[in-house]
């Protein structure tokens, strides 16, 4: 029985699968509780779960947490959408046309190692402190990785699949639209899911300087006034939002690509 659970790549029941996930969460919560309620750590460094919860509720009801979430979400979304709107087509072209790869891969490979946060002073100089600057940070943090990942997805389209299309009468344009694009679609959606997750991690960076709203701003403020409960609320909310968008992408994936599964469901 136990041996079965520890056989590589063996399927386990759905119920067991989700139960162990919940148990891990409870375990983390338990350790947190023991450390704080047990008085093992200073509440100034790590507040109790109940303190965090009541701060969270208070911020929702009396503060402007909801509007902060809205502002942060729109920054992440717009920055990411622009990155995707340019990165996806560019990545597809780079993955299928050697000339495009030759032209863009070296420079993207170079820029992507430059930390997005280091561009903030320059961005402020160039475009000021407005919304555009915040979105630009998100854009810089995701665009280059995203483009390279989409390129790899497109490169993995089987050559025989393209060759057979020519023998069926497809033109070069049709090979793009009817073969390379649909064949890359699952990989594209998966790449967007992963990079959207990264976009969230750039939020705090984007809102460090010159922001007066947003969850990142809230976290920075709380750090200045030594409010660890508020920091944790902010972090948890970013985590939750990230998790929700991740689940949304997974649902889209499951719904759109049923042809990948034997049971067709």
């Amino acid at each position: 029985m136990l041996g079965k659970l520890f056989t590589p790549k063996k399927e386990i029941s759905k119920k067991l699968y989700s139960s162990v996930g919940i148990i891990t969460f409870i375990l983390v919560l338990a350790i947190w509780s023991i450390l704080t309620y047990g008085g093992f750590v200073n509440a100034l460094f790590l507040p109790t779960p109940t303190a965090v919860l009541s701060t969270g509720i208070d911020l929702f009801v009396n503060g402007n947490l909801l509007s902060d979430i809205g502002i942060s979400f729109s920054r992440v979304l717009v920055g990411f959408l622009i990155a995707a709107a340019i990165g996806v087509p560019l990545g597809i072209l780079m993955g299928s046309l050697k000339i495009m790869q030759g032209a863009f891969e070296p420079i993207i490979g170079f820029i992507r190692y430059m930390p997005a946060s280091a561009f903030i002073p320059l961005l402020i100089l160039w475009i000021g402190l407005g919304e555009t600057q915040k979105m630009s940070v998100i854009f810089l943090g995701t665009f280059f990785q995203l483009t390279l990942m989409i390129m790899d997805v497109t490169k993995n389209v089987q050559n025989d699949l393209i060759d057979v299309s020519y023998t069926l009468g497809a033109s070069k344009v049709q090979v793009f639209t009817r073969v390379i694009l649909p064949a890359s679609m699952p990989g594209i959606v998966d790449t967007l899911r992963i990079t959207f997750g990264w976009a969230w991690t750039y939020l705090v960076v984007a809102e460090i300087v010159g922001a007066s709203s947003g969850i990142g701003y809230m976290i920075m403020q709380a750090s200045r006034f030594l409010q660890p409960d508020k920091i944790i609320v902010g972090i948890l909310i970013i985590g939750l939002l990230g998790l929700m968008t991740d689940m949304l992408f997974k649902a889209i994936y499951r719904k759109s690509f049923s042809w990948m599964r034997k049971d067709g469901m």
Partner: protein
Amino acid sequence: METPKLEIKDVGKIFKTKSGETTALEKTSFTIKDGEFVTILGPSGCGKSTVLRIVAGLEEATSGQVLLDGQPIDGPGPDRGMVFQSYTLYPWLTVKENITFGLKLKGSSQKERDDLAQYYLQLIGLEGFEKHYPVQLSGGMKQRVAIARALANDPKVLLMDEPFGALDAQTRNIMQEVLLKAWEKSKKTILFITHDVDESIFLADSVHVMTARPGRLKRNVPIALDRPRDFSVKGTPEFAQYKEELLSLIREESLKSI
């Protein structure tokens, strides 16, 4: 003399690689008549796929030319359909949509596509599977659909590169019969590559044996077995004789290529 359907004239191929030049194919010539079923038999790596890819227009010959109905070919086109050894169905399309892929590109009407899909589904024995996706099919079924997809496009010649190479012996035998039936109905000209001696005899009007690398034609063996054929022909003394002849030819070459 009537013009051959397909004429391969002094076609040769040299690949340039890091480690220098590889002659994949020495100057090779042969012709195929309209409606003929020709198989190419040769040891591994002798350039069989290279010949076929040149005929398909997917690879450019270093020398010589390929004539289809007397006209030199220029790049790939729907007049030369192809079935690969690897599974090349579009996984996001249903069986029916796969079969009618080329027709849709051509702009055929919905009605025409429906009718042709129905006809070819029946021909390959996959009625009732039109709504299935490739992932739900066995290897043999996938190759049947690939054959139907190529035939539905009505090419002048059908090129097949070891299409049954990945299938088990039992499925392979069944597929050979399915293909012969489809060929007899459609009267297509077929150029079929294999390294399986039984398969080359069973299917062909004529077997071209290739030498080890660098490949060229070694011998052409016409197969005078009666048509239509079914699996029982494989047990006849005539079949055994062809087999013996071809086995000794191919054995010489295989020894060289090891």
